[in-house]
């Protein structure tokens, strides 16, 4: 995975790194959404309403994820992130690890959505397609939940356990 412009929360680039991570997550979500929209449109035209409904539900989940990521907190100006006077190296490492995990989950979701479209175009069984769509929805929901834990990491790392 390569993120252009990403320098790992180095000093002076931390806000830009945060924005880059969030934009990458949004981009992944948009990619998955586009695949599912194709499936939705084709399924609706072919009167496969059950598949279209499932794809629409997954798109709604992705929309919520994108909105969460777009409106997520980024911290204060002089404290890097809110509630924390200075970010230690270990905190930044945890943050980098967390971002990496989220992006990996999103990538898996994109792959599944790609599989959905492929299965639909290959004429697979309806149940199989719906199962893949639900897998993608589950992955997006997991990513959304996992990303929400990022705010906790940023918010002074009050939690002791590894997120």
């Amino acid at each position, binding site marked *: 995975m390569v993120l252009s412009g990403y320098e790992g929360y180095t000093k002076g680039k931390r806000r830009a790194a945060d*924005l880059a991570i969030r*934009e990458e997550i*949004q981009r992944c979500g*948009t990619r998955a959404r586009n695949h599912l*929209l194709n499936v*939705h*449109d084709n399924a*609706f*035209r072919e009167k496969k*309403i059950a598949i*279209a*409904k499932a794809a*629409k539900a997954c798109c*709604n989940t992705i*929309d919520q994820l*994108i*909105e969460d990521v*777009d*409106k997520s907190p*980024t911290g204060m100006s002089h404290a890097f992130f809110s509630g924390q006077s200075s970010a230690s190296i270990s905190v930044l490492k945890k943050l980098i690890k967390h971002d990496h995990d989220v992006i990996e989950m999103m990538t898996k979701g994109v792959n599944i959505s790609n599989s959905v479209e492929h299965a639909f175009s290959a004429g697979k069984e309806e149940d199989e397609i719906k199962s893949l769509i639900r897998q993608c929805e589950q992955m997006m929901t997991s990513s959304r939940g996992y990303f929400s834990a990022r705010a906790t990491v940023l918010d002074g790392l009050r939690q002791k356990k590894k997120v």
Partner: protein
Amino acid sequence: MTNYKWRSNPNIIARLVDGNDIKTWKARQVVLKPNEACAFIIDGRIGDIVSEKIVRNIGGGIGRHIADLMGGTATDRRMLFAITGPVDLGIPFNAAMKNGSTATGLMHLKVQLRKEDIPKLLNIFANSAPLLDRNALVGLIANEIATRCIAPAMANCSNDEELRSPEFQEHLEMHTEVEMRQTFSNLGFTFLRAYISTDKTDQEKLQKLRADLDMATQTEGANADALMERIAIREAATLRRIECEVNVERAKKHGEVTIQAESELLELRKQEAVWEAELARDQGKADLRMKESSHKTAQAMELFEQVQARKRDRVQQSQEHQEQRMEKQNEIQMKMMEMAAAQGALTPEVMQEFLRQQTAQKAIDGSESSSEPTPPMSTSCKQCNAALMADWKACPHCGAVQ
């Protein structure tokens, strides 16, 4: 440096600003909130798209003016501001349903501008004013929405129930998403949700009128029922009260009558006791009298029996005397016959004479015996007129002395 406000109205969705039009002494800056983004178009090229930051020196100021004069700035510098949050649009519609009735209402659309899609707004601003608000966006898509989405969906909707059903809403949303994807994509918008809210149809108004009238009728009926029930309860209470009063009066009268009857009964009992005492007294007297009369009767009967006994004795004595005399005569006659037979003087004439004398003697004996028990002459009681013998001293029936 003063702040530049690109959005003065909540209905504004996007604005295209020419940087060269900002001519102020002080330089301007703009603060981009999380739901706002700005795309820079410099000399015809799309530059950065920024958000959540302060964009300094977007226009104005002496320094930029001097730089412009010296040719040190870009020739054409435009900024495209837009809202990246979801935007709700309401599109009025008026479509005919399958059953001929007309459905009116609003179709609500939720669309969103993604940050990377902001430059696509240039497609809009190329043909219209550099300000896009909700009304302008609705004007852009309303006709297409009505033609491609609402009219076909309504044409397939057969009745009001189907119009209100969730299936219809889902179908309409999917249909709108499929049909409007291309248009929204060209304009830079992402379709999120769609639903319609319809006004009451004619059928529904008619049903509401019927329901209202029915409800009014039922209300009137319920009131009438309640009133009738109240009247019935009052009637029952009144009747019950009257019945109770009658019962009370009856009980009073009954009590009075009972008391009076009891007093009368008491008087009657007293009278009865008096009568019983008198009856006992009279009965005692009668018993005494009866005893007296019985005693007299017994005495009379005793006397009668004594008389009869003496009479029987006398008759018996006379019979015995007669029998003795007859036996003596028979003996004498037998001796006479024997003497006559012994003397040879027993002739038929003698026998005949003997029989004639004997017969005469019997006749005399019979006349004597028959004349002696002459029955006494009967008389009647002076008090009860019962038959009495002549020699009786008292009446055996009433005990009266004769």
